[in-house]
């Protein structure tokens, strides 16, 4: 039987196991949306901006491990998802984005809402295709999902012209892909792995440095096993180790004699000054993406392969080499003790205040109240770093953050995406007034779908990270970092029909969080935090890893000028639970 392109689209998605699509309609995708609304088992989450759709799909994908699906129209619909595509590309998030395109006979004519979707998205997608013939549509969709989710995952864009969605073709969903140029390596080179095992047995001061690749390949158990067999401490990217990572992890990396990098890419926020990063360490680098290896940092033993598969091979060899666990323990004990000493010397600290709410205090309380079970999405900036430091999650796929691109406005839609995937789990969005205002239009999605996302908004009235740098390096000239007039977030929540709470004094934090977390629907908690709190430890840009700043440098005068950080409700009481 012949189906239209739009029907083929829906049927193909069903075959790929898709349940949820994030999107917004428009002229050239009318046919697809028309067929879509007649499908009972495909749920369209109608966002209020295409960027929201892209980040929701990212949140969905990061939390589930499955590809997130986006459907938007041509021209502005497509250009609005570019930030989401670039974000997904940087953080290796599997996305399949379908964009409408003007009819094939109009392409190149500057038609209404035409854009070169494939051209614009080329540098920020893993792969992209313009489907010119409806007979190719099913095969293209099959390949898009395969490419997005295999190897190093990433976003794939499929551009569907209007006439392709209306034309008919015989539907037969392919059972395999036909890509002679794409064949990601899975198992690692055996000799390299053996060599790695020998190095590991010898090393006295080894560190395991784990990146996002470990999560995509579901290798948490294998890493735990590796750490247990070898008694080597583990550190993670944008969870503990970065520009604002813990003192002890940065010190341990710096003085290590063997670095086992697992699915990590030596981001500049991790390494700081490259020439002084891990200066004495031998490096074993395991990654599925050959371009990640030796891109910024040298590797003595490169191993290209899927992290899980390689670690399984490695653990087997290590077990066979490791006759005596006590001996290994003895070999590594002084090193572990050293790392512990560093940890004790400079733990994460902040000064509690009676009058003003410290952001770290809020995250600490939140962590205590949610008992590690929550999925946490963050935006970008100081609050993200505080969340990384004080929300000590340790399970894969519960930490959704924009690590590579650093996209403000990512957090809230990502939280919605995760909540759509897991309606019964607790989903938190830790954000700030700056980031939140970049995608707050999606509040209506949470409201209409009654998605119980808990938004914890650390409202300090300034772009905190920018303000911190201006105080540290630009003599306190607050160029464009004071946000000035601020909306009343409680009233904003009310306008969207969701619950709003506010805390302005430290003793109001706990009641607000407790009540907010207990509430059944979505909640916006506006928490007024100290505008002048700085985030430490910190490696200044261009600084070396062991040269962290642990507190305000002596003599630093925080300018505290402008006063524009005044927020609605600052003077009085908070808006507390009744």
């Amino acid at each position: 039987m012949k189906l239209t392109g739009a029907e083929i689209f829906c049927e193909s998605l069903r075959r790929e196991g898709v349940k949820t699509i994030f999107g917004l309609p428009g002229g050239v995708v009318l046919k697809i949306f028309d067929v879509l609304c007649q499908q009972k088992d495909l749920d369209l989450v109608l966002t209020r901006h295409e960027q929201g759709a892209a980040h929701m799909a990212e949140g969905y994908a990061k939390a589930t491990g499955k590809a997130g699906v986006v459907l938007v129209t041509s021209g502005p619909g497509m250009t609005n998802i570019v930030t989401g595509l670039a974000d997904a590309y940087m953080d290796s998030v599997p996305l399949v984005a379908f964009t409408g395109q003007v009819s094939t006979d109009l392409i190149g004519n500057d038609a209404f809402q035409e854009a070169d979707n494939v051209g614009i998205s080329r540098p920020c997608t893993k792969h992209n295709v313009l489907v010119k013939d409806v007979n190719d549509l099913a095969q293209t969709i099959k390949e898009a999902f395969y490419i997005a989710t295999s190897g190093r995952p990433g976003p794939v864009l499929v551009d569907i012209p209007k006439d392709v969605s209306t034309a008919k073709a015989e539907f037969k969903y392919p059972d395999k892909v036909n890509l002679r140029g794409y064949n990601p390596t899975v198992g690692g080179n055996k000799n390299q792995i053996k060599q790695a095992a020998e190095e590991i047995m010898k090393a006295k001061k080894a560190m395991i440095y784990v990146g996002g690749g470990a999560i995509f390949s579901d290798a948490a158990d294998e890493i735990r096993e590796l750490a247990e067999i070898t008694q080597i401490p583990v550190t993670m990217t944008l969870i503990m180790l970065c520009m604002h990572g813990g003192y002890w992890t940065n010190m341990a990396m710096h003085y290590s004699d063997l670095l086992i990098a697992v699915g990590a890419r030596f981001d500049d926020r991790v390494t700081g000054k490259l020439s002084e990063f891990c200066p004495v360490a031998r490096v074993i680098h395991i990654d599925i993406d050959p371009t990640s290896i030796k891109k910024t940092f040298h590797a003595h033993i490169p191993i290209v392969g899927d992290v899980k598969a390689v670690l399984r091979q490695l653990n087997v060899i290590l077990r066979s080499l490791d006759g005596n666990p006590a001996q290994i323990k003895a070999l590594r004990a002084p090193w572990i003790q050293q790392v512990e000493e560093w940890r004790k010397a400079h733990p994460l600290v902040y000064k509690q205040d009676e009058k003003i709410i410290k952001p770290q205090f809020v995250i600490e309380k939140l962590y205590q109240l949610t008992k590690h079970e929550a999925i946490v999405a963050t935006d970008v900036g100081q609050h993200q770093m505080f969340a990384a430091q004080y929300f000590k999650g340790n399970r894969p796929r519960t930490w959704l953050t924009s690590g590579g691109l650093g996209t403000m406005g990512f957090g809230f839609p990502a939280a919605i995406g995760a909540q759509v995937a897991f309606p019964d789990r607790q989903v938190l969005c830790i954000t700030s007034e700056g980031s939140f205002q970049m995608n707050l239009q999606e509040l209506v999605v949470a409201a209409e779908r009654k998605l119980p996302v808990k938004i914890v908004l650390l409202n300090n009235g300034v772009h905190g990270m920018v303000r911190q740098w201006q105080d540290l390096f630009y003599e306190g000239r607050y160029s464009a970092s004071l946000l000035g007039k601020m909306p009343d977030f409680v009233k904003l929540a009310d306008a969207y029909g969701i619950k709003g709470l506010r805390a302005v004094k430290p003793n109001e934090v706990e009641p607000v969080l407790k009540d907010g977390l207990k509430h059944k629907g979505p909640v916006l908690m506006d928490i007024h935090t100290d505008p002048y709190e700085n985030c430490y430890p910190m490696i200044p840009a261009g600084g070396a890893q062991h040269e962290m700043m642990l507190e305000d440098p002596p003599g630093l005068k925080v300018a505290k000028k402008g006063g524009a950080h005044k927020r609605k409700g600052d003077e009085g009481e908070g808006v507390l639970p009744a």
Partner: protein
Amino acid sequence: MEHIISVLVENKFGVLARVAGLFSARGYNIESLSVAPTLDPTTSMITIVTVGDDRIIEQIMKQLNKVVEVLKVVDLTETHFLDRETALIKVHTKPEHRDEAIRLADIFRAKIVDSSPNTYTIEITGDVDKVEAMINMLKPLGIKDLVRTGRIAISRETTRTASPRREPALLKN
């Protein structure tokens, strides 16, 4: 150091843009580029001449391999190879220069493929040194116009007398 990289790709629209974009996005320069279909009409061969240190070339090779439509990448400079370029050179021919132009074409085994009352157009094929030498020799006569194809290259088959050589770096699975 200069490298000649052969990239076998799917013969589809947009592939060249993707390959070229990969260079521009990383600030790497392409010295010359030539593209044409191969024996198999579903594939094209892109020959790229580029300059970079070992780290940059390694990244270029890996990035090229990562492109879904790229089937094979070979750094020919790692092997024994032949390279050729063709140039069409239009020179001014005052009456007293015509003999010299014909003589030079003869010495370089080039051909005069077009003539007009005031110009000869000379076609020369050879490795890059030969083409450049020819251009330099013709300069005193006055070059009116010049086009070059960019280099194409192919690996040599092993001969018994050849010294042991490294195999071409076939990175694609």
